[in-house]
């Protein structure tokens, strides 16, 4: 954590080494998160570029994050995704983000097949059953490991509200997956 704070302070002074380290550390994660939200690799790449361009502009203006750089970057990415989704209702399947999930797997076992079916059902439910808020909260909480407080900061809602959204999302996923599994089997 101290290292993160020192990195942030150095970046505020426009230290090139610190700024490069921040990009190398967070760009892949931001890309993955953005890809999960917008489901388009090109759009995700552009959003990564915008996120770090805004970060540089903020640092150049003497502004920018003071404490939690990671939350700040995810928050910026989230807002950019929301803005773009308003402009164009382009949607791609979430499987784009999971494209390599099957790679390297040959001769799967029974348990692996079962799990694969479960994962496909989960992805499908996330794409079809959840609202935008529920999907964002689920992604931030369980795929990006943000705390409730951080998630609330990124999305811009109260912690209690995030809890409610999360529980409703999980309930929806459980219900949808149960139904799908019943249909499959």
């Amino acid at each position, binding site marked *: 954590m101290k290292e993160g704070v020192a990195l942030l302070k150095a970046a505020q002074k426009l230290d090139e080494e610190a700024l*490069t380290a921040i990009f190398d550390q967070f760009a*892949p994660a931001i890309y993955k998160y953005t890809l999960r939200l917008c489901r388009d690799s090109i759009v995700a*790449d552009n959003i990564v570029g915008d996120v770090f361009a805004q970060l540089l502009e903020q640092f150049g203006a003497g502004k920018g994050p003071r404490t939690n750089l990671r939350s700040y970057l995810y928050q910026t990415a989230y807002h950019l995704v929301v803005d773009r989704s308003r402009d164009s209702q382009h949607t791609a399947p979430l499987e784009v983000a999971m*494209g390599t999930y099957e790679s390297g797997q040959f001769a799967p076992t029974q348990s692996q097949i079962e799990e694969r079916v479960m994962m496909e059902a989960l992805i499908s439910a996330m794409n079809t059953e959840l609202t935008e808020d529920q999907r964002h909260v689920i992604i931030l909480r369980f795929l990006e490991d943000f705390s409730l407080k951080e998630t609330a900061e990124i999305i811009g809602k109260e912690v209690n509200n995030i*809890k409610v959204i999360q529980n409703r999302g999980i309930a929806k996923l459980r219900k949808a997956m149960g139904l799908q599994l019943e249909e499959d089997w």
Partner: protein
Amino acid sequence: MGFDAQDKEIVRLLTKLKDADGKYPPDLLAARRQGYLNQMGQIGLGMSVGAGIKNAIKSGKAPVLSSATSTILESALVVAIVAESGTVAYFYRDKLADIFKTITKEVGIQEVTPPPVHSELEIQGVTPSPAVTATLPSVTLSVSPSGIELTSTPVPGVAEDNNTISASSTPAPNGNNGHHYGQTPKPERTKEPRNNNDKPPKDNSRPTKTE
């Protein structure tokens, strides 16, 4: 946060989904990183220039220039100031002339007309008499048994040799100084102007013919 068994299964699947590999394509990542570094260089250059100016202002020292450069800069500055002031003076020459006139104008005596004072007489439509009074010579007519004697008082400042006019008349009987027939002085008759339309009322009583 507590989840029930079914929810825990969902959470477990979600965390497994986290490990699913959505890697940044290396070519895209490299291009993006290069763009980021370029932008960082631009901002750093701008910041360094800004910091240099800030330091110069803080220290109060201008950057050191050669004497020839400073001379050229000074002369260029003077020429620019002169040209600008000349242009401004040309455009506002009328206003400048007015200002110059008002500055150089001497202080003169201004004739101040007092506001008219309305006295009570004027308000009532009566003009006051002039303050200057003229002393007229008074004429005294005295009738004595020896005759009528006119005595006039001399006007001050006017030399008159003979102030007394003497006229002889018939002596008054019994010393009575009353007006007798033929002795009363005739009143001076004022002559009316010809255009006077105010004719006296006609006397309807015709003189009776005397037969």
